[in-house]
């Protein structure tokens, strides 16, 4: 599935879409499977409202904190995620990547002081993220209908199920029960993600013709890329079809 040449950087931008962290339809597939669109659009609208009224302003304030502090927060959050990534690396048979994840966890949790400093990256263990939605995709499970989750944003049936499994079964924090740490982490993750998505969200609101459709499409493409472990979409059938199909009526329809 992921015979990459050499280690590929997976910018923690992966974490950027961590709410959007889960989907594998061939990129460019024309018909998006979204039978719940009316409900999804309603939820999208409510999420937008929540964002404008609360989350956006909070994330803005967060963005004014000194950068090293935010980087530290991000590192801690990433480190807390690594057990889930580790289990899913294993479940996908990606043993090399599992080794990298384990090394990261070990280095950053110890000399990285509870994950505050991402020293593992300096030592040549770059971060990546996996989740159970991706594992299911690797196992051949289709993504199912698109879902817009309240507060969490875009997802699919498969990815939402994966999220539940990750949280309930693979996440050590969940084992501690419903603690303040868990809640703080969830809130931190939401604010940090929102902050990093800010330019994208602004752009979407200003320039998108149909923001909901754009978010849906971007989410599905992004997930497909995650599942390919970031190989580019070039060569994917659905994607290539767009550029070929045009070629056929190119001559016929050209000016």
């Amino acid at each position: 599935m992921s015979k990459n040449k050499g280690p590929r950087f997976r910018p923690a931008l992966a974490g950027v879409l961590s709410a959007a962290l889960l989907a594998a339809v061939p990129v460019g597939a024309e018909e998006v499977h979204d039978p719940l669109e009316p409900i999804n659009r309603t939820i999208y609208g409510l999420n937008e409202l929540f964002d404008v009224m609360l989350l956006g302003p909070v994330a803005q304030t967060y963005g004014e904190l000194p950068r090293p502090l935010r980087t530290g927060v991000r590192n801690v959050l990433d480190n807390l995620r690594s057990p889930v990534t580790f289990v899913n690396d294993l479940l996908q048979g990606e043993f090399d990547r599992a080794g990298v994840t384990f090394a990261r966890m070990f280095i950053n949790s110890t000399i990285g002081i509870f994950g505050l400093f991402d020293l593992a990256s300096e030592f040549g263990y770059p971060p990546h993220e996996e989740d159970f939605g991706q594992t299911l995709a690797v196992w051949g499970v289709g993504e199912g209908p698109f879902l817009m989750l309240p507060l969490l944003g875009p997802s699919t049936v498969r990815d939402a199920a994966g999220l539940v499994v990750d949280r309930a079964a693979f996440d050590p924090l969940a084992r501690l029960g419903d603690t303040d740490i868990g809640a703080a982490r969830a809130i931190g993750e939401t604010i940090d993600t929102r902050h990093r998505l800010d330019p994208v969200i602004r752009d979407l609101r200003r320039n998108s013709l149909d923001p909901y459709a754009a978010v849906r499409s971007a989410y599905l493409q992004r997930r497909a890329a995650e599942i390919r472990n970031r190989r580019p979409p070039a060569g994917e059938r659905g994607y290539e079809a767009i550029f070929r199909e045009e070629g056929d009526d190119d001559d016929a329809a050209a000016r």
Partner: protein
Amino acid sequence: MTTPRRAERSAGWSRRGLLAAAWFFFLLPRPARSMPAAARFVDDLGRRVLAVLGDRSLDRAARLERLTKILDEATDLALVARLVLGRYWREASEAQRREFVDLFRRLLLKTMSDRLDSYGGETYEILGARAVDERDTMVFTRILRPQGEPIAVDWRVRDLGGRFVLVDVVAEGVSMVVTQRSEAAEIVGRSGIDGLLAEMRRRLAQSS
């Protein structure tokens, strides 16, 4: 007896010399001519854009004007617009097509103008290129930001018989053409091509 030894030594030297030369070339920053033509095209484009963005003597309007010129030269917007409209292109009338291409271009320029002020010293790095079919090549790059993780951006370049044009930009796996196509299809499905054109005009009017 000395001659062969000397010959041997000189052969040794020349071999070492060759090796050194090979290393030297290997260590050189990749010269432009070792890149496929499509990658060179993207590199050239990147240089020109950075030159404009980095030129402090230019005011915003002048900057925008130059970028617009670069954009018009480096893309065939009629072609990209057609890709974005997808199968609806065939259903569109001549007048609708013309208006769609025009609005598409203006919206793209508006987006560019919006993003202009967010430039903060980013540079790029060309990672490689791969031909996907007879005319299209994907050029893989990384946008390096002064702060934050690099962003993987792939450029789909089409060879129009010697002249290159950009046909798609894929940022972190998300293709501009695919995304806009999905938006266009959604709106056309709901309210027809005229509905799409109306929405585009509405968006344009909002900016000013």
